[in-house]
């Protein structure tokens, strides 16, 4: 799934063929696949008692996906808002069984940028022993939307997670919470790319290294454009002899925007190694002028610098 320079139509087309869970406002379409149990979360909540361990409250809408056999295509889900003032409150549970290697793409988006929608998503993703997940999560919202996303990844022994979050267009308000619980020898690599345009954004990510030799890397890239305010807290908590690194970088492209990044390390095991780096800076005038002397106008030059920054 290509994430860069994707517009809404391309996103729809890209997802149209292989989407196993598709939700428009509150209408749901499900495509059954061999080796995967997929159903609305409410149905699963009634059917499987163990789901109560993950969610205290009875869920309203959202999906339950349980991958039980190896599959050779990426699992795709798409949740969109296409009417005005729709409020989605989603609860999603995604379980990958032992030893499976899965790729998944999720898009959460609005069909138009003036629908004033609300999208609230709680999600738990469980990677059983020795499994791996390469997960791409894309958001594309409108100027008046409010979005809150709270995802928790539970990594059992020796499982591997590679997660990338990217927002193509930011909503008016975005609250993005990501939590990773890592057991023995599991590893997580989180890449979170945020482009804020005229937005208020709160980021909160935590990686808990709970098992021996667990590893966690967080690469946070945030760009503040056109009166955007971003607050980001990134935490790495070593409760066992694991390794981890936080890399938080922010780029401001105008005088009205603000970025506040707080990397936090907590070490509770003397054999753990955790490190961090953080920087926030304005866009370089020299780089801007350089690209303008290559014929790009100011907006094109900023877009290219931002694209490069998010690639780092």
């Amino acid at each position: 799934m290509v994430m860069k320079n994707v517009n809404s139509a391309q996103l729809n087309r890209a997802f149209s063929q292989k989407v196993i869970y598709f939700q428009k406002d509150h209408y749901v379409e499900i495509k059954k696949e061999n080796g995967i149990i997929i159903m609305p979360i409410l149905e699963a909540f009634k059917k499987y008692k163990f789901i109560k361990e993950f969610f205290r409250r009875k869920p309203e809408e959202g999906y339950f996906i349980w991958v039980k056999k190896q599959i050779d295509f990426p699992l795709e889900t798409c949740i969109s808002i296409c009417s005005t003032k729709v409020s989605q409150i989603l609860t999603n549970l995604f379980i990958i069984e032992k030893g499976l290697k899965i790729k998944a793409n999720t898009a959460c988006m609005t069909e138009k940028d003036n629908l004033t929608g609300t999208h609230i998503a709680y999600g738990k993703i469980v990677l059983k022993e020795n499994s791996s997940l390469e997960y791409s999560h894309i958001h594309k919202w409108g100027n008046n939307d409010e979005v809150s996303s709270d995802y928790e990844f539970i990594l059992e022994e020796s499982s591997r997670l590679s997660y990338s979050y990217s927002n193509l267009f930011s909503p008016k308000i975005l609250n993005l919470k990501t939590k990773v619980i890592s057991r023995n020898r599991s590893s997580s690599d989180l890449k979170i790319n945020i482009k804020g345009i005229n937005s208020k954004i709160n980021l909160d990510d935590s990686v808990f290294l709970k098992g021996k030799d667990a590893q966690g890397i967080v690469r946070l890239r945030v760009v503040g454009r056109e009166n955007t305010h971003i607050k980001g807290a990134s935490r790495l908590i070593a409760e066992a002899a694991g390794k981890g690194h936080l890399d938080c970088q922010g780029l401001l492209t105008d005088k009205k925007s603000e970025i506040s990044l707080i990397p936090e390390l907590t070490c509770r095991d003397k054999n753990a190694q955790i490190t961090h780096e953080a920087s926030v800076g304005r866009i370089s005038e020299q780089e801007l002028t350089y690209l303008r002397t290559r014929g790009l106008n100011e907006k094109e030059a900023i877009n290219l610098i931002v694209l490069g920054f998010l690639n780092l």
Partner: protein
Amino acid sequence: MDLLVKNLKVKADNKKVLKGVNLEIKSGQVQALLGPNASGKSTLAHSILGNPRYKVICGKILFGKYDITNFTPEKRVKLGLSLAWQNPPTIKGIKLSQLLKKISYKEIEISEGKELLEREVNLGLSGGEKKISELIQILSLHPKLVIFDEIDSGLDIKKLEKVSKIIKKELAEKGVSILLITHLGQILNFLKPDLTNIMVDGKIVCKQKDFKKVLRTIKKYGYEKCKQRAVK
């Protein structure tokens, strides 16, 4: 298209750097600009390209039929002006091939520096590699007039010869005007400028057709003597 710089006075960081520069480059001409450090050569180059760091306080820059004194850099580039930077900045996360796709409407054949295409723009490049990268970008722009700001610094003699050959074949022989800003004489031996200008303390103090004579004078007496002896 001819470039005409008339009595140009420019400030940078509140300091007067150019103090009345007059320069004319006819279409298809190759000219050189020499001068001691901090004499204003790079400031002139950047002012011609419209770098907003440099404020024009007096004078005009004309390119063809246009008065471009207040044009944005990109508008000047669209008209056919271009500048190979002396110290180009890095554009992290962007490969040279990506940049070329953005800036060029027509692909060019690259004989030198193919290995740079998949590297990030100017990141971790040697001095010589940066110059090759600049040259590739300039060729991609299909310009009418190019200012090379010390394209020869950091190049060994073989690379210098190669670069000079490319400039000659792809630009000079195709009628593109060239202004070579240099400290060293060797590139002039390869490209043989029609006119050599000497800049001292923010002004062009002499112009000379015979670049070898200029180089001899500078070597023997320095730039100040050149000001007194070689002006004609």
